[in-house]
């Protein structure tokens, strides 16, 4: 989401810059150079189009080879290239579509072509499945349309383009033959494809593969859900899948981790990489043809071997006929995810209940935004995300109390100021975070489906430690949060307690942040305690109810994720929020009696 925000901000900024230049631009730029300059979003398409353009035109891709579109961020230099191009070509799906929209606004619709507008009616590609070039024959069928587009910019070149397209068609047919030959080495019952996204469908159709499944269906969407992932795992086991493939574009994403996690569970090996949108010259993939050959060889090398025996699949026997209640938990990854969610939410609720009494409910926000900024900084300097976030969380906690002491402002004012400052730092840094295949956004969208055994061990371990420490100092902490002045007057060591609570809050939010995601982590600290506050009279009751609400919400969230296909952390928070609403409503009724 933050990437989207960054896009939107950049879009606004650049629109502001673009409007005056558009009016000032008296010389049409496409006439100024001797050669047409064709700008294409994706490296792989740029290579195909340059095969047609030959010497007559310069073809470049907006996204550099080696960078996934999803992590690409516009730079002012690239905006200038978009402005200068004779024509801008994009496909029109997912986050790639955003680039097209941007080009339209900066070029005021001059010479912007959306390929799907022509290829979709022609039955060559669709918005849900845009990767037509992965089938050489579909690529061949698209050539006439590409020639039309080039001829629009350079009408005299039509004949030249047509003859080059004819040569290219020949090479595509040869490529098709080559692939067929290689694929014939794979036994038919082994032509099974599991990938991160639904990218290989046209290739599969063409060469007789079955697409068993993927983590995420639609381009441009993020969230896997417990339900969709479990169904994929079921299918993998049922079909006897032995190898799952990771797309190059997903190299640094959480989605890849999800696939790896469940593959491990199904006894399936994961293999890097299938190339989809991007080229990777550093890995020997610098043209469309090399991309197709590399993908094919990866498939052949990993699928052509015979079925290995003695491979017992986990959970196979439990699957059929399990109870509604138990059904989501037939695989370990769901149990891991659920335990992690419960632990993180329980610890957040307990620590959060002290924060709520102290009047620091909004602290979770400031800490989470601080942690995000720390994570981005850690990313830039190559440090550990976890410690970057934790260090920044502690920094926020300490600066809030330092400012509060110096200025005698109320804590909420100081917290609010810190919170927007940290958010701004994150946005500023995130907008500069392009240029790598790793995506910070993915770190923010933690989900129960992506919990590795190490993540579970860390989260559950830290949560239990947090809970144990909080209970151990609870009787002192309570006196402090109820009234710091009375506590100090009673000889309670309020300084130590103050910093202990701050440290607990920072540690808890960072722990939850990585395990259950950004927004759920913030909410887990506030919503269950707020709900418990309304329905409790006494401290122990308050804390027990707060933790209880968190645990019930976590479990309900997992079921919602499984049966309704929604994000588990978010649904857990919605369940808590629902309880809050009920508590408020019934509380009112009790008062008016």
């Amino acid at each position, binding site marked *: 989401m933050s990437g989207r925000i960054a896009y939107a901000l950049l879009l606004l900024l650049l629109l502001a810059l673009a409007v005056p230049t558009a009016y000032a631009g008296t010389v049409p730029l496409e006439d100024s150079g001797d050669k047409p300059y064709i700008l294409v979003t994706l490296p792989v398409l740029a290579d195909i189009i340059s095969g047609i353009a030959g010497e007559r035109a310069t073809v470049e891709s907006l996204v550099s080879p080696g960078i996934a579109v999803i992590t690409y961020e516009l730079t002012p230099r690239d905006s200038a290239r978009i402005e200068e191009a004779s024509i801008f070509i994009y496909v029109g799906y997912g986050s790639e579509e955003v680039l097209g929209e941007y080009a339209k606004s900066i070029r005021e619709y001059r010479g912007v072509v959306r390929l799907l507008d022509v290829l979709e009616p022609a039955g060559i590609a669709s918005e849900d499945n845009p990767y037509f070039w992965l089938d050489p024959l579909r690529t061949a069928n698209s050539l006439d349309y590409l020639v039309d587009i080039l001829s629009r910019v350079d009408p005299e070149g039509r004949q030249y383009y047509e003859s080059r397209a004819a040569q290219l068609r020949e090479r595509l047919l040869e490529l098709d033959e080559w692939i067929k030959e290689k694929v014939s080495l794979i036994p038919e019952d082994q032509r099974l494809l599991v990938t991160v996204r639904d990218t290989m469908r046209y290739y599969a159709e063409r060469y007789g593969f079955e697409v068993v499944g993927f983590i995420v269906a639609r381009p441009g969407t993020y969230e896997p859900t417990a339900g969709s992932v479990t169904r994929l795992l079921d299918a993998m086991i049922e079909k006897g899948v032995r190898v799952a493939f990771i797309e190059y574009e997903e190299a640094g994403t959480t989605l890849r981790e999800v696939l790896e996690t469940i593959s491990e569970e199904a006894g399936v090996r994961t293999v890097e990489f299938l190339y989809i949108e991007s080229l990777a010259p550093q890995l020997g993939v610098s043209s469309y043809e090399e991309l197709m050959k590399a993908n094919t060889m990866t498939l052949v090398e990993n699928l052509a071997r015979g079925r290995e025996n003695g491979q017992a699949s986990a959970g196979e026997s439990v699957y059929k006929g399990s109870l509604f209640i138990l059904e989501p938990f037939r695989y370990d990854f769901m149990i891991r995810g659920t335990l992690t969610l419960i632990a993180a939410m329980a610890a957040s609720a307990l620590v959060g209940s002290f924060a709520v009494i102290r009047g620091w409910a909004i602290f979770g926000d400031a800490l989470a935004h601080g942690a995000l900024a720390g994570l981005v900084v850690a990313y830039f300097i190559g440090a550990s995300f976890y410690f970057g976030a934790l260090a920044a969380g502690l920094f926020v906690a300490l600066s809030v109390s330092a400012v509060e002491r110096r200025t005698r402002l109320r804590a909420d004012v100081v917290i609010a100021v810190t919170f927007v400052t940290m958010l701004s730092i994150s946005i500023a840094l995130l907008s500069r975070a392009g240029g790598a295949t790793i995506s910070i956004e993915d770190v923010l969208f933690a989900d129960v489906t992506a919990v590795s055994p190490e993540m579970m061990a860390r989260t559950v371990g830290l949560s239990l430690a947090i809970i144990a420490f909080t209970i151990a100092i609870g009787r002192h902490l309570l006196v402090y949060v109820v009234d710091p002045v009375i506590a100090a007057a*009673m*000889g*309670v060591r309020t300084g130590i307690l103050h910093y202990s609570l701050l440290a607990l809050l920072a540690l808890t939010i960072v722990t939850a942040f990585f395990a259950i995601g950004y927004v759920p982590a913030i909410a887990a600290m506030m919503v269950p305690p707020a709900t418990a506050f309304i329905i409790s009279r006494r401290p122990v009751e308050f804390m027990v109810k707060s933790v209880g609400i968190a645990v019930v919400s976590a479990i309900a969230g997992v079921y919602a994720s499984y049966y309704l296909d929604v994000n588990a952390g978010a649904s857990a928070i919605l369940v808590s929020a629902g309880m809050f609403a009920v508590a408020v409503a019934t509380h009112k009724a009790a008062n008016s009696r």
Partner: protein
Amino acid sequence: MTLGAKAPACIMENVTVRYSQNSPPAIEGVSFKAELGEMVLLAGPNGGGKSTIIKTLLGLVKPEKGRVLVLGRDPSKDNDVRRLIGYVPQISELNIYAPLTLWDLVSLGRRPRFGALFRLPEEDVRIVNESIELVGLSDKAHKKLSELSGGMLARALIARALVQEPQIYLLDEPFESIDAQSESIIMDLLVREKKRGKLVIIAEHHMNGLDAVDRVIYVNRRILAVGKPEEVLPRLNPSMAGGSSG
């Protein structure tokens, strides 16, 4: 004015307190002694420095100049000596938005005896119940703080100080929102504590039952008068003389 043999429980020597660098001092050159078994009224106008003196004795505020000793120790450095002080803050300073009943608030005074999950031993429970009974709030013991009136909260804070079983009571305007009947009940309690050898210091602008007060210290930034109530009060502030405020 001293009771002779007993050692001073509180000593302030030439104490000056400033809340920030460039503001005038809240109190300046304040010196006095108070002994166990005494009841002292700290009188003075709004902003006169009564609360500041109490907070300095508690060690919550550090003096810029001068020496403070409570039971022979420096309260700003010694947490343990604070446990021997029963502090009753002005109720406006109390956080009532906590999931606490009146009983819980009073029981905080027994904090050192809390077990796991805030559980108190039976003997302590009895002491808490007794104190609540003494301030006449037994029927309200299980009300949440946010459901209590100002006067009830004030009485609860006094009960909280009582269960602490301190050597010294520091009460900051304890009668502010308390009705006359409760005021005399509480005054009797404080007299009882005084007779048990405790030092009781009360900060108030006005007071009705002054018979029990041994000394009045009148402060308006500096100490302006010290003496028996009937000597000091009529001179400085007629409204503070017992009978006339009715």
